């Protein structure tokens, strides 16, 4: 349970090898030791992350999770909570996809929708069930500003994030009064392994900055945060930009 000073006892990272998930674990471990459950595919990277977090003082467990496997989320949540309550669960998995291919390849679109929208909603539902029963917990959902107003350059990715963002925002409202809450995180462009090779853009951020914002957001009980914070006002402006202009913006 999150204690009186906002320190956590346990952290579940769904998509446990994502840069933001790992940065969040590092950030929490810098404060205090905690139980950390890594839910991810069984890869060398998962083992390396587990070793790194153990070296930082975490009591690390690993649990198999494949965002593209239909039965995987249910089993993952059961496995992750077998060892005790989960205080904070970070839903951090997702793919960017190849925007060029997604323009024409319907199978690729369906695949991205499964990983970025269907799987997060299943995971969110299972987590909410479990946390409702334990009577406490915070679900942190990694959305994206790309979901606030999808752009021509990556509208498939943007639409999946719009869907998962809507799901978690609504889930958070439905959980009011249960002791469970949801924090929706909308980062701008994050320089990470997911975006490696892409050109940098203004107001881009880092996994470490997102982790810092997540820890602060959980501690202060926020429901939606933007990283960097200025993104909130930028996106608010863009949402109200006339379409003819929005379409011509150079990004």
């Amino acid at each position, binding site marked *: *349970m999150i*204690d*009186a*000073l*906002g*320190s956590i*006892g346990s952290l579940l990272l769904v998509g446990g090898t994502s840069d933001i998930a790992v940065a969040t674990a590092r950030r929490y471990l810098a*404060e*205090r*030791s905690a139980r950390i459950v890594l839910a991810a595919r069984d890869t060398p990277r998962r083992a390396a992350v587990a070793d790194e977090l153990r070296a930082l003082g975490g009591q690390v467990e690993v649990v198999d999770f494949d965002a593209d496997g239909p039965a995987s989320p249910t089993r993952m949540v059961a496995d992750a909570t077998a060892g*005790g*309550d989960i205080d904070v669960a970070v839903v951090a998995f997702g793919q960017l996809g190849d925007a060029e291919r997604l323009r024409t390849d319907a199978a690729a679109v369906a695949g991205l929708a499964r990983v970025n929208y269907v799987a997060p909603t299943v995971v969110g539902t299972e987590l909410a069930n479990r946390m*409702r*029963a*334990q*009577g*406490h917990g915070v679900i942190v959902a990694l959305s994206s500003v790309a979901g606030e107003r999808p752009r021509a350059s990556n509208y498939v990715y943007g639409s999946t994030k719009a869907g998962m963002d809507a799901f978690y925002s609504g889930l958070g409202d439905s959980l009011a009064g249960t*002791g469970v809450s949801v924090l929706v995180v909308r980062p701008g462009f994050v320089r990470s392994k997911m975006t490696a090779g892409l050109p940098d853009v203004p107001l881009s951020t880092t996994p470490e900055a997102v982790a810092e914002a997540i820890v602060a957001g959980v501690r202060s009980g926020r429901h939606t945060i933007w990283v960097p914070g200025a993104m909130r006002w930028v996106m608010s402006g863009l949402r109200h930009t006339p379409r003819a202009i929005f379409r011509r913006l150079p990004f």
Partner: protein
Amino acid sequence: MRSADDAAALLAARSSRGVLARGLARSYGDAAQSAGADVLDMTGADRVLAVDLARSEIEVEAGISLDRLMSLFVPLGLFVPVTPGTRYVTVGGAIAADIHGKNHHRAGTFSEHVRWLDLLVADGTVRRVGPRQDADLFWTTAGGMGLTGVILRARIAMTPIESARLVVDTDRTPDLDALLTLLAETDDEYDYSVAWVDCVATGRRMGRSVLTRGRFARRKELPARRQADPLRYSAAVRVSAPDVFPRGLLNRATVAAFNEVWYRKAPVRRRDELQTVPAFFHPLDGVGSWNRIYGPRGFVQYQFVVPFGQEEALRKALVRISSSGTASFLAVLKRFGQGNPGPLSFPTSGWTLALDIPVGGAALAGLLDGLDELVAGADGRIYLAKDSRAHPEVLARMYPELDRFRAVRHRVDPEGVFTSDLARRLSL
């Protein structure tokens, strides 16, 4: 719930997250909370069942408050054997937290005045336990934070008094050394004793304090006009704090100013002042919702004890607190007497310091973790009824008899039906 039958029915119909009894929920931490579980509000079971004036003993239901006991029994010349700094705790809570008061150095804890108690255990049966009836289960329940079962009833030995006033001596000491010396030399002359310590003052003035000690007045010590009705007692809440205090109101500057005034207004030495029970024992109870002055983020309490001979650890703790930039005010220092057999009972002979600290800076968690290490290293411990942030590893070092507690708890509750957020957080 209003009766033992209600409690048994709720226990039988429990969810998988377990059951926990709650009194007036004045624990500062998560002792009376259990997320997802069934929590029994015991305050409806508050009857007095029997009174034995010849022996000064009473039998009560566990949900009755010390406030009510004082209203009922002070006029009859009986005072509760032990009272903490608030009257708004129940008898069940007083036993479960094994509370102490200003008279610990003479009278021990509340549970040491309990003749027996009735405990509803996990299998639905009620067991009467006491110092001579299943003493293991009795002492595990005393200070057991509600984790052995539901305390339903208890028989308590009260303290006979001749009047409802106290004869109080006040001494102001310029620093910690002077305070400890004064306490070590003359504390045993007083029934009740406590010192307020300035935890903001640093350097030479570190640990400056106001020590108040007293005993109940005998009837003939009262002024003539009061001798006709020496046991007259009233305890009203005079004012309430409104819900408007902003966060950060209690900062280092305001607390330092408050402490300066508090210290300066205290007499250097005053003898034989008559005080009322509320003024002497429960000054904060006179202000309803006083906790609101801490603003929406609230505060944490930190109370520890270190054995005699570990004065250096006490001094180090004070230095760390006073130099940390936190704004603890009204820190309270007391000299404890002997401990009791309860494996999780907090008081042991030594020095105890209790602090209120506003929740604020990110450094607070680290400061308190560091104090935990210091206290554990000095063979000391922290008080579970006040804790809301400690770690299981350090707690096990502070309570070496934790395994004995677990063994008895396992005997009466093998499935861990009775649990709390505190128990889960600290792996009790």
